[in-house]
Structures are given as C-alpha cells and as structure tokens.
C-alpha cells in the first residue's frame, strides 16, 4: 500500500489521503500512522481517497475508526496497551455522521464492506472530489 497526501482548500483546509493498494491487517497501522502525522502537522479534516484501493479487510474498519478519533482530537486506544481510556467519536447530532473524516470513491468490494458493517451511517461517502472538498465545514 502507498499513501499520497495532498492538501486542498475548501471552507476549511483539507488533507486528502490517497490510498493505493489493499487496506488490511498488514497495512492498516501504516494508514493510522500517516493520519496521526498529518494531524500533528495541523490537519483536522481528512478525505480518504479510495479510488485506487481494491480491498479493505476488517482491520481497515479499525483504521477508519481510529482516524476519525484522531481527527476529532482523541487518542485511539491501542489494543496492545490494554485498558486505556476510551471515548467514542463525537458524532454530529443532526446527521449522525462525524465531520472530520469522509470517504471518496470506495470501489464496489469496499463499498459493500462499508455497507455490511454499517460504516456508511457514520462516514459520509462522496464520488466527486470537488463536492467532497466543498462538503467539509
């Protein structure tokens, strides 16, 4: 997997993380680390571009959740660390979706995984890059 970071300017500054390759048990921590890195660089809004991501395993779900936590200013607990503090993502009260992390162009197998696991209820999904950028506020 390769991750490319672009910066875009909508109503707020947005970091676009383009994921090239599978997001699975072997790569999900790399994506979390990259998100942590851009967060530390000041990023608060992330668009995950999944157009070139053919597959996402359940480990990918953990990555999406962790990134949503990171961007909302929380520390995702590490399962290896045992029982640390754990808080849930602060979802927007109206839409039920969180505002910091959105997904762009998930491919059919990934879209299916997002559907099955109910993550579509929590992550806004866009197919148009410009519209996705404009949607962050």
């Amino acid at each position: 997997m390769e991750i490319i970071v672009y910066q875009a300017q909508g109503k707020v500054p947005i970091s676009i993380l383009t994921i090239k390759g599978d997001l699975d048990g072997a790569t999900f921590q790399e994506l979390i680390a990259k998100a942590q890195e851009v967060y530390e660089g000041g990023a608060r809004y992330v668009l995950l571009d999944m157009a070139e991501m053919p597959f996402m395993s359940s480990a990918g779900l953990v990555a999406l959740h962790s990134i949503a936590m990171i961007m909302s200013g929380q520390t995702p607990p590490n399962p290896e660390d045992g029982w640390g503090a754990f808080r849930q993502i602060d979802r927007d009260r109206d839409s039920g979706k969180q505002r910091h992390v959105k997904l762009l162009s998930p491919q059919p197998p990934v879209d299916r995984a997002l559907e099955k696991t109910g993550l579509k209820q929590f992550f806004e999904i866009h197919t148009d890059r410009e519209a996705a950028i404009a949607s962050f506020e």
Partner: protein
Amino acid sequence: MIPRDSTPLHRLLDRHETRALLAHFESLMPGVELALIDAEGKFFVGDFAGWADEIIIQPLTGVQEVVGSLAARGTVDANILNALNHALSMVIAQALAKREIARETLERYREINLLYEIGESIGSCLNPDTIPGLVLDAASGVIQSAASMVLLPSASGSDFEIKAACGPAEKVTQLYEATCDLVAAIFERGRPDIVESADFGAILCAPLKVQERVLGIVVLGGQTVFTASDEKLMMALGGQAAIAIEKAWLHQQELQRQRLEEELAVGRQIQRSLLPMTTPQIPGWEFAAFYESARQVGGDLYDFFELPHDRLGLLIADVTGKGVPAALFMAFSRTIIRNEAMSGGLPAHVLQCANDLIVRDSRANLFLTAFYAILNIETGELIYADGGHDWPLWVHDGECTELATQSSLLGMFPSIKLEERAISFAPGDALVMFTDGVTEARSASGEFFGDERLQKIVRAHADASAEQIASAIASAVSEFVGDSPQSDDVTLVVVKRKIS
C-alpha cells in the same frame, strides 16, 4: 605492554662474576683500573675515587639498549679493552634476549589468561546489552586507553550506536566523532586498524567478528601508541565478544519465540473453550459447524443456545483483531450477547443492547461483527438481525440469496439501529453462516475466494446435507488457498431443514 625503560645492569649481570672478569683483564694490563658504569652514571663494579686522572669511557657496544659504559684508567691496550667490551656486550645481549623471551611469555600468559577470563564472564552472559561493557572491562585490564567504546549497528542499520563506553564523557564523545568513518570502514572490511590521531596518540579499532560476520566494533583511543600485539589481542577479544553477543541474541530470539508460542496457545485455548462442543440434535433439522483457527487466532465465534418456546438462538461473530486480546474481547462479547439473548429479546434488540454494553465497557480498539437469529424449530420462522457481519446465504428453491439488512458493526458507535427481518425456512432450505476468513481467503497468487465462488458452491450443494455443504465449502477454501499461510480463522455454520 611492559614499559621499556633501560634495564638496570644488576638484572643483566652478576656483580661478583663481573668483578672477577674485570680483575682478569686488569691483570692483562698492569697499572690499568677498570670499572663498569650503569646507565645512570653510577659505578656498578669498581670505583674511581676522585676522577682526577684521565678516564676512558666506552659505551658497551653490540647492545641496542644503552645499559651502561666501560671505564678505564691508566695506560690502556685498546685491543684488550675492546675484547672486554665485546665479551661484556655479548653477555648482556644474551641476558637481554632472555628477558625479552620472559617478557613475551608473560604477555602471552596475560593474553591467554585474559581470553580465559573473558570466555568465563562473557560466555556465560545471556544478556546482549551487558556484553559490550564486559568487553571494555576486559580490554582495560591489558591495554591502557584514555577512552574506549563498543559500537553496534543501529536498528535502522544506517549508523552505529555506542553500547558501552569507558573513560570521561567528553573523551568518549571526542572518540566517537573522530572515528565515524573509520568505524564504518572497519565494519565493512572486518580487519582491525591502528591510526594516528590528533586528539589521541593513536586509535585502535577492531571488529567484533564471528567467522566472516562483523557484529560490531570496539574502539580504543590511547594516550600513547598501540602495538601489533595490542591489535592481535583486541581481535581475539572481539572474536570472543562476537560469539557471546550472537549467542545472547539467539537466546533472546528463542525466548521471544517461546513467549509468542505461549500467547498463540493461550489465544487458541480461550477460543476453543468458547465454541460449542457439539451441534444441536433436533428432529427435522441438521446443524453443521466448521472452525479452523489461523496460526494467530482471529477471534471467530459461533454459538447455539436453546430458548423458551421451541426456539433456538444462532450466533456467528468475528472480532477485528488477533491473538489473546481478540480472544478475550470475544469472550467478553459472547457473554454479553448470550445474556441479552437469554432474556428473550428479539435479534435486533439483543445486538443493539449488546452494542451499548460493549461500547460502554470496551476500552480497547476492538470491534466485532455478529449475526444473530432466532429459529422457531416448529414453524421454521427465522428472525434475524446483523451487526455488521457478512450476510449469511439462504438457500431456498435452489436459489441462493444473501440475508441483507441494514446493519452496523458492534462496539464502535453507541445507540445503533439495526434492521430486523424474517424468513420462512421451508423443508429443504439451508442457511450458510460464515466469517470473512472464508471470503477473504487468499490463493497463492493473491486472489480472494470471494462471495461468488462461495455462492456457486452453495448452489451446487443445495440438495446436500448440512454436513456436506460445510465440508464442501471448507475443502474448496483449503484447496483454493493451497500452501499459502491462512491469515484468518475460517468459521462456517450450516443449518438445514430436512425434507420430511
């Protein structure tokens, strides 16, 4: 190294015999007095009181080291005096040679003794972090240095880290900075070197080497020069140290492997203890289950539980994560779901309540997917809800349909709303529940087993028994994966209503 100051004459010549020798030569030259003066100018044999007369002083020739001079007073026969000088020099040269042999023997003894001691102390050390310190302790016992250090390649391999150092901190820093390039070169070459240095008299740099593999470098910054013998000694020391370091590394790897194996075993044990020992035996129905754990347990679970009013609870679940944490989280989740289910709630309610409890209590970044259904064994009605799990397949009239619902992963978000649906299980129908270990099984070429392949097999075995369907899928997956390592647990549960 033994300091090589001028050797005192009394260590080379017997005073009594020398006196006799000089007396003999005096008898050959009447009126002449002879004496032997040591390197410091003191009389060793004879004494010229007053020094009033003219005295001839000859250095002892034929001896490289200045050990003393021959002195004569009176009318000297030069030939005789030269003969005496020659004789004395020969005796001294022999004595010096003997001393040199003794000195070398002593050095050899020290080296052997040092190597023996190192073998004892370093060889019995199983902690790779303490060996470099022991090496410097040993080196300081035989070679004097102003600063010394042992360097090993850093984890990234791009530079070297000081693992042990001896001497004042600023000297060590100076030595480290002065030898960056030298260390890299010696590490590459595997042979020791002695170089001159502005800050140190000389720097001795030797590899810690096992056979042809260089594991690290020992560097000594001396106040004076180093000899070839010092270099040899450091090579021997480095060899001992390298063997010990490698042994300690292997030991640690072995310990780590054992710990990992233990963890894997614990994970599998927890997992196994959660799975039912048997499948339900209910007239008119068939139940089959297949479970195969990956090397590192993936946290799959299935369960059957009897509910009041001829109903049976069916559960399949999968934790996102691996190993002991996943197995423990699965045990925790299973208890919660079972408790909710036993209280008689419908599937969506059970999973939603379980979700709230898991979200509230779970402090690890672990989630689970679960499919829960209640089967009325009298009517065949199956009510189900899905907590983000792979949709099971329903075989009805030879058709294979996914039991798709509005679902959501459990443990990630509070207050989820799950959809609840029902189907009527007709005689001849089958239900295939599975985990992503089935569809995400990968072939050697990296291809996924996938939903289509699974559905094709299920359709082809629509009329088969529950047991046959489960084993057909399991063997197809195993054949598809081939020799590539199985990365996730594979779990299958098949329910079949018999044609009465």
